[in-house]
């Protein structure tokens, strides 16, 4: 077998090279993953916090239902539902671009996993932390804001790191609704050029580099947020 890396300098028929197309696609992958990450973090932190509230059984049930719903349906099916079904049921959402719909799908899917980690993090704290907040005369909201969540989020940074990397990898599923991201590029360029191995190698490398970058960024965040002298064991994560 011979390599033909020149394929990346060829014109793809629209005046740009395959290399430029691939870098564009990388940009789409990073934007989808980045926007979904924000949605997942905000919603996940909120839902995960609700699941640990004392004295609010209905909010806890609602938040638990949220997690079960988004965890037990495959991501691909969720993306199809956001793309095909939701705009039909809610005509208001007809004008949303497929990018926004995929960000919702991926963000909500991941939010369930984040919520699970947040709940585990809050429940891993000794009960005394909550009592300490109450003894200070804090309201529940203040206890969470100043005592529980700052501790819980530090504990769960390792599993959040792996969830963030999962999110990046899961963004590949967006190919299914024709987002012009890396996997879509890989499939189309492979068909057009028949240089599948070179194309796939390059795309795989970009995914690996991106995942590694996420890992390093989170390591820096972890170090920055570390409380000197405090050692906490991370909760275990799972999944892909």
């Amino acid at each position, binding site marked *: 077998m011979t390599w033909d890396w020149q394929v990346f300098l060829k014109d793809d028929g629209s005046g740009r090279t395959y290399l430029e197309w691939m870098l564009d696609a990388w940009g789409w992958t990073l934007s989808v993953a980045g926007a979904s990450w924000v949605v997942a973090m905000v919603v996940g932190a909120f839902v995960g916090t609700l699941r640990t509230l004392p004295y609010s059984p209905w909010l806890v049930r609602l938040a638990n239902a949220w997690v*079960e*719903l988004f*965890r*037990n*349906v*495959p*991501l*691909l*099916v*969720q993306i*199809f*539902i956001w793309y*095909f*079904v939701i705009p*039909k*049921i809610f005509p208001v959402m007809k004008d949303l671009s497929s990018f926004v719909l995929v960000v919702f799908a991926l963000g909500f899917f991941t939010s369930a996993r984040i919520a699970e980690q947040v709940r585990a993090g809050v429940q891993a704290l000794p009960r005394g932390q909550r009592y300490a907040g109450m003894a200070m005369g804090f309201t529940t909201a203040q206890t969470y804001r100043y005592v529980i969540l700052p501790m819980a989020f530090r504990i769960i940074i390792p599993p959040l790191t792996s969830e963030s*990397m999962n999110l990046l*990898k*899961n*963004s*590949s*599923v967006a*190919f*299914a609704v024709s987002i012009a991201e890396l*996997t879509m590029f*890989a*499939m189309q360029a*492979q068909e057009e050029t028949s240089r*599948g*191995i070179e194309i*796939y190698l390059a*795309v*795989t490398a970009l*995914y*690996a580099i991106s*995942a*590694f970058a996420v890992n390093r960024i989170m390591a820096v965040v972890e170090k920055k947020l570390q409380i000197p002298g405090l050692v906490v064991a991370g909760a275990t994560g*799972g*999944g*892909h």
Partner: protein
Amino acid sequence: MFGLDLSFVNWDIISRFVIKGFIFSVQLTVVATLGGIIFGTLLALMRLSGKAILTVPATIYVNGMRSVPLVMVILWFFLLVPASFYSLIPGGSNYRAEISAVITFVAFEAAYFSEIMRAGIQSISRGQVNAGRALGMTYAQNMRLIILPQAFRNMVPILLTQTIILFQDTSLVYAIGAYDLLKGFTTAGKLYGRTEEAYLLAAVVYFVICFGLSFMVKRLNSRIAIIR
């Protein structure tokens, strides 16, 4: 309701389109779980062997697989498995996507199961290892009779959870057009012009299966916890 019409669904459609896909999804899940656990345990043993010639390739394989999206791995195998391979299997050339999917999932899941098994083996206390050695067991006997059975048992809930995730991930064979549960629904939906309803039904079926299974894992988990 909401402009949806589910009246097209009947037993005939389910048995013609959905069952076939469901069977493949289940087969893929079962084969990938068993194969993944077998190869994953081997990979874990390689990584824990302490011999660089075994540790290094196993580590590269596991970390490599885990840093690439499953969809890309599916595409890779579909590209790389040679056409002559499919003709080794009777009738195989008609089921290229399906056969390639099975190979992919075993290879991919082995990396994830190996991490679970590695954690399981490491969770066994040194005393157990030493006890085996004190009885004069070889390394292989010690692994087979003392450590692996306990490691496996400790990890059963996590292995089952991974299997549920695996079942959901089988829907990604969409990328190469294999006929799975999701494809069964979409095919029927397209044929009757009811795409949206088909996706909704697929979501409900996946949800019921995965929720039911994870409920069972949770119960098993609490029973195992009491025994321990």
